[in-house]
């Protein structure tokens, strides 16, 4: 695959999001400090991404003492904070949605938390519309935090909602607005580890074959044009479960088949590649040959390298939802090996040294890191 090469080859920064270890944290095998130390000791970094509402008790309230201890821990373990994943909880009140002023205030508190904890990027989500992103730009600038809106299945780079955001970013011309690329938008197959999980829940081989066949049909057709088509596809998965004696699995097929395994092609990312500030290296498993069987990791890394991307790639292992029989730690190490190999094949390399990562990230986000002590 040859994609547009308009820049010197990029050198993406290796990293991980603690979301990958959700079951270990939720299961109290590791507390936050223990998990950060494990990430450092086993070389999943240097990039470190954290979800605020998952890992920080009381978030978005962060007191000075905690912020200081957290920064000390990151420094001691020689990791590099990349992105704080924040949430637009528009539905936090049961009886109504937040209005725009309330949403801006809600997001501002989280942007302040990102600055205080030393994250140069805040990952935001699709529910924030172009007008709100424009209003948030000066707030992001004030705190030195770049807002990277996540492009996640069932959306994709050329989806009308994403293009509307891109066009607004272009108009606003703020370096503090951009995208987080989530590889789940450009998946190439229904994850075999999830098929195995359904098998363990008693699904027949015939039904599993039909699930794969249906997803492949959608892949051939390309991503859904709009939310209506997305809903129709969701319904087809529900029908499949109902028609094959497993109505209990239908919604699960639909959630994963449409919301985790997006069927856009890798080069769809070219629509927004200049605005990509952060990457979620979403993946679901590693096969016997050491490759990711359903996410085109090698093509995605090549695209990033060829387009001069030198930001962070947070390995985001999502197989933990269903894969209870394998350690996530080994699987993530194997996926990062694929990324490193792919970067070399593309004529570059992944950055794994922390000092080099800081320098590369400073060049990637020069507007933000000028305010390094922005608490």
């Amino acid at each position, binding site marked *: 695959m040859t994609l547009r090469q308009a820049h010197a080859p990029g050198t993406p920064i290796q990293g991980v999001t603690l979301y990958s270890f959700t079951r270990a944290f939720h*299961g109290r095998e590791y507390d936050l400090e223990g998990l950060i130390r494990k990430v450092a000791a086993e070389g999943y970094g240097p990039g470190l991404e954290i979800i605020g509402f998952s890992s920080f008790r009381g*978030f978005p309230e962060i007191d000075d003492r905690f912020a200081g201890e957290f920064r000390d821990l990151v420094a001691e373990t020689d990791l590099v904070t990349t992105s704080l994943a924040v949430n637009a909880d528009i*539905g936090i009140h049961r009886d109504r949605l937040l209005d725009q002023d309330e949403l801006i205030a809600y997001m501002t508190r989280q942007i302040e938390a990102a600055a205080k904890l030393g994250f140069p990027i805040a990952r935001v989500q699709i529910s924030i519309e172009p007008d709100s992103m424009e209003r948030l730009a000066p707030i992001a600038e004030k705190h030195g935090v770049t807002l990277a809106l996540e492009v996640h299945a069932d959306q994709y780079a050329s989806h009308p909602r994403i293009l509307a955001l891109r066009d607004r970013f272009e108009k606003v011309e703020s370096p503090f607005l951009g995208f987080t690329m989530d590889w789940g938008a450009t998946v190439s197959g229904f994850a075999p580890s999830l098929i195995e999980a359904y098998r363990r829940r008693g699904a027949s081989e015939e039904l599993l074959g039909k699930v794969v066949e249906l997803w492949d049909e959608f892949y051939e057709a390309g991503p859904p044009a709009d939310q209506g088509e997305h809903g129709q596809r969701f319904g087809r998965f529900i029908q499949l479960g109902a028609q094959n004696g497993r109505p209990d699995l239908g919604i699960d097929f639909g959630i994963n088949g449409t919301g985790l395994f997006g069927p856009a092609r890798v080069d769809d990312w070219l629509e927004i590649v200049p605005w990509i500030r952060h990457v979620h290296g979403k993946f679901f498993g590693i096969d016997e040959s050491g490759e990711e069987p359903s996410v085109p990791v090698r093509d995605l890394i090549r695209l990033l390298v060829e387009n001069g991307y030198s930001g962070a790639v947070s390995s985001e292992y999502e197989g933990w939802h269903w894969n209870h029989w394998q350690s996530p730690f080994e699987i993530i190490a194997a996926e990062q090996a694929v990324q490193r190999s792919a970067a070399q094949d593309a004529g570059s390399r992944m950055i794994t040294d922390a000092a080099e990562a800081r320098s590369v990230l400073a060049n990637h986000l020069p507007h933000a890191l000028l305010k390094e002590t922005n608490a």
Partner: protein
Amino acid sequence: MIPDRIIEQGTLVVDGRRARVEVRIPWYRALPGSCIAGAGLTIDGVTAPTDSLRWRMNDAEYTFDELRTITDEWWFPTDSAVLSGDLQIDAHAEHEVRVDLTLYIPYIIISDTETLHIEEHDIKNMTAVAA
């Protein structure tokens, strides 16, 4: 998500005519009280009356109606909440415990007025202890 961990094994307590059990969030991130929309507590096939249910987290106890407006107390992913209700069961005996949970996911908006909710349940067998 993580429905297999909703009920904490070995936490069933009998306290007079009430029973309680510790529960874990089946989701990866903290949710505020307002997003804990409902629960069911069923022991040996008998379901506690809805109006008798109470939810304890962060050292405070709430009815589910009270939780509707709680947006500044959060159910953290590593914390146990306590679900209790009117159920008369024997201490020191084995029981089948079922907990149903309805949670709103406040950042996933599925229409102009509607927020995604998820319904999860867990069933575990355990021996009750007296309070």
